[in-house]
């Protein structure tokens, strides 16, 4: 197996506030290769922060420390802002939840894609436009010429997200970090967007870090799943083994979903065992 794209060991993220100091991420370690890794957790589990810390896009008061945090050999911890800027967008792209907020509402969609393209490739406007139309087609947008001239608010959420994916893939990054990319979308549209993402990611051998609170979604889409709780990774296992998860938290999450094929009177609520805060965690079904 070739060297992983991302190699993180003992990542810790701490916040200072009026109430004192608070550690949001408490010593997590993981690797991501050219595969789809899902990070699942509730709000407050630290999953979004983890994703953002790789790109050093955490909020101002956050202090990131780690034993090491590497992207293909580059030390991300030690990297200055200038170096991070060459990595961001180029080698590591990020897709956010709501395309309404990540697309510039005042620019036509086509122009945004062209701009993104010309940021990373030296190209003349006409060439960039052709490339942009090709990108729109690659995400299965049926009338790329028409959509090229539209503004973000004139397209649906699903289409906006597909456009975001197209834009993020232009520089042909090595890794994509997707933070709840389908949470704002309808169920049928979700499927479409994920299929496209899957296609593009597999075809190019791009790594994917898929952050979500939806365990089902992550399980069906990703190769590996990391379950986070209270700033730690509780369990790290292949997606197909999810039904035989060992950690009680993962099991509780699976059992708390209302299911069409398995009606219950009362849903099982994950009881938060305080021993989970600092207790044992599982890797590939084994206790560590």
């Amino acid at each position, binding site marked *: 197996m070739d060297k992983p794209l991302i190699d993180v060991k003992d990542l810790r993220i701490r916040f200072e506030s009026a109430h004192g100091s608070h550690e949001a991420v408490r010593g997590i370690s993981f690797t991501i290769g050219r595969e789809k890794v899902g990070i699942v957790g*509730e*709000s*407050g589990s630290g999953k979004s922060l983890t994703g953002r810390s790789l790109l050093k896009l955490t909020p101002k008061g956050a202090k990131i420390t780690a034993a090491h945090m590497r992207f293909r050999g580059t030390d991300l911890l030690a990297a200055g802002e200038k170096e991070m800027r060459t990595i961001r967008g180029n080698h590591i792209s990020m897709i956010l939840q709501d395309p309404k907020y990540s697309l510039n509402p005042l620019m036509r969609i086509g122009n945004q894609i062209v701009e993104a393209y010309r940021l990373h490739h030296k190209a003349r406007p006409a060439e960039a436009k052709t490339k942009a139309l090709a990108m729109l087609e690659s995400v299965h947008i049926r009338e790329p010429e028409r959509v090229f001239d539209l503004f973000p608010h004139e397209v649906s*959420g699903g289409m906006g997200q597909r456009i975001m994916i197209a834009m993020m893939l232009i520089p042909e990054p090595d890794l994509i970090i997707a933070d709840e990319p389908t949470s704002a979308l*309808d*169920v*049928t*549209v*979700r*499927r479409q967007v994920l299929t496209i993402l899957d296609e593009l990611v597999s075809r190019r051998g791009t790594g994917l870090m898929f952050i979500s*609170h*939806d*365990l*089902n*979604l992550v*399980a*069906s889409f990703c190769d590996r799943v990391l379950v986070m709780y209270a700033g730690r990774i509780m369990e790290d296992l292949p997606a197909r083994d*999810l*039904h*035989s*998860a060992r950690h009680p938290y993962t*099991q*509780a*999450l*699976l*059992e*708390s*979903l*209302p*299911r*069409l*094929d*398995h*009606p*219950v*009177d*009362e*849903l*099982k*609520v*994950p009881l938060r065992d305080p021993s989970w805060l600092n207790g044992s965690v599982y890797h590939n079904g084994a206790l560590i």
Partner: protein
Amino acid sequence: MNGASRFLIEAVGLSVSFGSQNTRVRVVDDVSFHIRKGEAYGLIGESGCGKSTILRALSGLNGDYEGALVLGGRELPKRRGKDFFRRVQMVFQDPYGSLHPRKIVERVLAEPLAIHGFDRHSERIGEILDAVGLGPSFRYRYPHELSGGQRQRVAIARALIIEPEILLLDEPTSALDVSVQAEILNLLKRLRRERDLTYLMVSHDLAVIAHMCERAGIMYRGEILEELDAGQIRDSQAKEDYTREFLQASIEAVARRPEVDA
């Protein structure tokens, strides 16, 4: 009392349009349904199908509709009065937006009591906080200090503190984490049983609707395509193509069943 109608809530030919003269769009198109007392009825569909619009028209937030909305056998006026609000309350989708950012929980709960002239404010507030699973330590907190689930509980408490008969639920758990969703759904189910409430619940999540409601109307582009009961939903028995497609997409998103440990 008023034995004229077997149904508590009825919609007859409800239509809602938005936009000005030239660009009027029919968001809800001639919808009719009925709900019995104590029943939980679901409206399910994708965004833009009109389900939330129906809810808003029923709740009294939007008085611009055609057709009739009937409560307990009497047609409702377009502008509702206090006695209507005493009987019908709503829980909103976004817990982060439905509580006033500058009011502590105590004030949020005291307000409806004050508006409707209830007595024993402090006691009632304590009772309802217990009923929704929040203790007295939450009385003096601001919304931003609460998690999504806790805020939604406060929203439910606020809706129930004036003892309504009917609760309108606008995707109450779609903005919440999966594990918190379970808590809130359990809470809603329990409260309905305990207080003999009638629910009209809107959602895009079939599993949630099947879990909570006895019957549901599948909506598409402003119309109710068909009505199914929970059993039919679970067995994927649908007549319309769209419904079948919808059911299929919802089922696909489910992971393999966890092995049950002894």
